[in-house]
């Protein structure tokens, strides 16, 4: 599609990972302009853009910034680069291809919020990307975009790249703050929200990598122009990660609201191997499954919610007609069991029972009574966990059970997986 791009507009420009290469395509002009505009005007521009958080919860960015109490300093900015949602790899692309676009966005936000320390919390597995960002940050310091007296002003800003060490939960913003403070990465009770009491007990904004990577465009081109790229209810563009059973998996930047799941599927070359579409999981591992009847739903927050799922962190995992939904659900539940942080009982014990049962079901040795128990376990988790990790550990399973009840039932007492036994195993 030839729609205007924001995040990937410089794709293919030479030397983009260096300050010089990025400056050649207008890089860091947004930061210069932002400093001239002043903090209030930047916040107003971000509000006008309608930008909503790309980390999963889709909270309006300008509004979140507005929650910082006036005159309480120091304040902190934390960039969420923990990207661990199954099916998501967009932040990785943004960091590998456009590291300075991210840093410029971080610095614009830091200036708007008047913070002197911006932390980029990047997952431990992204070691290569961490080093890439560290190098980019060093360059930004040398060029005068970070450090003492940014661009000749009185504003100092430290850019600190902080590596995590393997824990999905550290993507949850309050767990991230604990981890950044040198503690076990377990979530904190909200309220108080980070905007009021965050890092070191000070007002803190946590924003996702993609959210912030939009800022250079919004500041240079204007919030209204950004908003107009999408629809009124779903402004701007978004980088979607399409994977699974498609011909050409990858990331695709598309306008929000105007694009459908089917469009995304086509961008990725359609279902692979000439097979039929069976199901898809938008948003990432946490989100509910959708079926063929939803392919024409637009990438609009409300429309996807009405279809029974969410755009979450911008993923789309496609499953063809050879897929066993019980197998997929079991895989996801194993993941949540492994990643449950252990803080609250419903999540820690719930994911354990859930996964033990899923293994029996998958192997065809669970009874129908046990299948009923699965619903019971999930009902006892949802809404009762300390943080959303435990809730989301039930969403795919329960939605798949609702959409494909026969598939789950046919596993009961079958002695093996009836779906995969009949078809060749994908390899």
């Amino acid at each position: 599609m030839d729609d205007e791009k924001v995040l990937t507009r410089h794709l293919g420009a030479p030397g983009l990972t260096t300050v010089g290469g990025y400056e050649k395509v207008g890089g860091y002009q947004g930061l210069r302009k932002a400093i001239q505009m002043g903090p209030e005007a930047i916040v107003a521009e971000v509000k006008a853009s309608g930008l909503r958080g790309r980390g999963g919860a889709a909270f309006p960015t300008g509004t979140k910034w507005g929650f910082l109490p006036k005159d309480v300093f120091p304040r902190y900015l934390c960039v969420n680069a923990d990207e661990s949602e199954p099916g998501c790899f967009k932040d990785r692309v943004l960091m590998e291809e456009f590291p300075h676009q991210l840093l410029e966005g971080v610095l614009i936000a830091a200036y708007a919020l008047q913070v002197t320390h911006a932390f980029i919390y990047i997952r431990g597995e992204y070691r290569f990307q961490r080093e890439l960002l560290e190098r980019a940050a060093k360059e930004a310091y040398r060029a005068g975009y970070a450090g003492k007296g940014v661009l000749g002003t009185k504003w100092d800003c430290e850019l600190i790249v902080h590596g995590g060490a393997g824990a999905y939960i550290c993507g949850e913003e309050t767990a991230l703050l604990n981890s950044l403070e040198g503690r076990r990465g377990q979530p904190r009770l909200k309220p108080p929200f980070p905007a009021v009491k965050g890092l070191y007990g000070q007002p803190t904004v946590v924003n996702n990598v993609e959210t912030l990577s939009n800022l250079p465009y919004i500041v240079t081109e204007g919030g209204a122009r950004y908003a107009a790229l999408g629809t009124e209810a779903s402004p701007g563009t978004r980088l979607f990660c399409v994977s699974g059973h498609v011909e050409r998996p990858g990331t695709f930047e598309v306008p929000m609201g105007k694009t459908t799941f089917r469009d995304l599927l086509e961008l990725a070359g359609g279902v692979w191997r000439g097979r039929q579409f069976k199901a898809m999981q938008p948003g990432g591992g946490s989100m509910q499954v959708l079926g063929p009847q939803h392919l024409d739903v637009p990438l609009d927050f409300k429309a996807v919610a009405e279809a029974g799922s969410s755009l979450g962190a911008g993923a789309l995992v496609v499953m063809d007609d050879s897929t066993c939904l019980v197998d997929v659900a079991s895989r996801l539940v194993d993941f949540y069991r492994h990643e449950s942080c252990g803080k609250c009982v419903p999540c820690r014990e719930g994911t354990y029972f859930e996964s033990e049962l899923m293994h029996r079901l998958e192997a065809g040795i669970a009874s129908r009574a046990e299948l009923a128990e699965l619903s019971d376990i999930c009902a006892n988790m949802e809404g009762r966990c300390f943080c959303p990790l435990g809730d989301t550990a039930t969403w795919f399973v329960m939605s798949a059970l609702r959409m494909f009840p026969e598939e789950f039932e046919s596993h009961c007492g079958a002695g093996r997986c009836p779906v995969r036994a009949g078809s060749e195993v994908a390899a």
Partner: protein
Amino acid sequence: MVEADHTDALNPATLARIRQMRDLYPSPRSAVLPALWAIQDELAYLPAWSLEVVATELGLLAGDVEAVSSFYSMYFNHQPGRHQIQVCRNVSCGLRGSDELLRHLENWLGVEDGGTTTDGAFTLEGTVECLGACGGAPMMQVDRFSYENLNPERAEEVLTKIRNSEPRDLD
């Protein structure tokens, strides 16, 4: 009881890095994870005494540091293989054959998920988080690099190359 002083056992550059981190953050405690990384980069794992060094340097109790390090799955408390193979088996990779890939590597390397080859070259891990490379599924990460769109033969090739080029890769 007088604790032995282990600061000498670390490379001075590692110690300097820990102190630099301690001074960089508004609170020294924030340097725990970076300090543990610095040590693991040098020693490949975190022996118990190294946690005491971190505690001393950052003004914490050793037990406190251990409580933190044990939370995170990427810190080792024993010597792993010289290279760490992580095979992603989350949804997107699972849909494109990661289970078969892991099974093949287990056979080929003669280890099970979590094990280390007898020559100490590789630790194989098949129980990891989604590694964020779903566009290239199935994939594995060896140390810090991703190898994507794998089949068993290609994975063997990659690992053979790494094994054969070991001295250069050891740094």
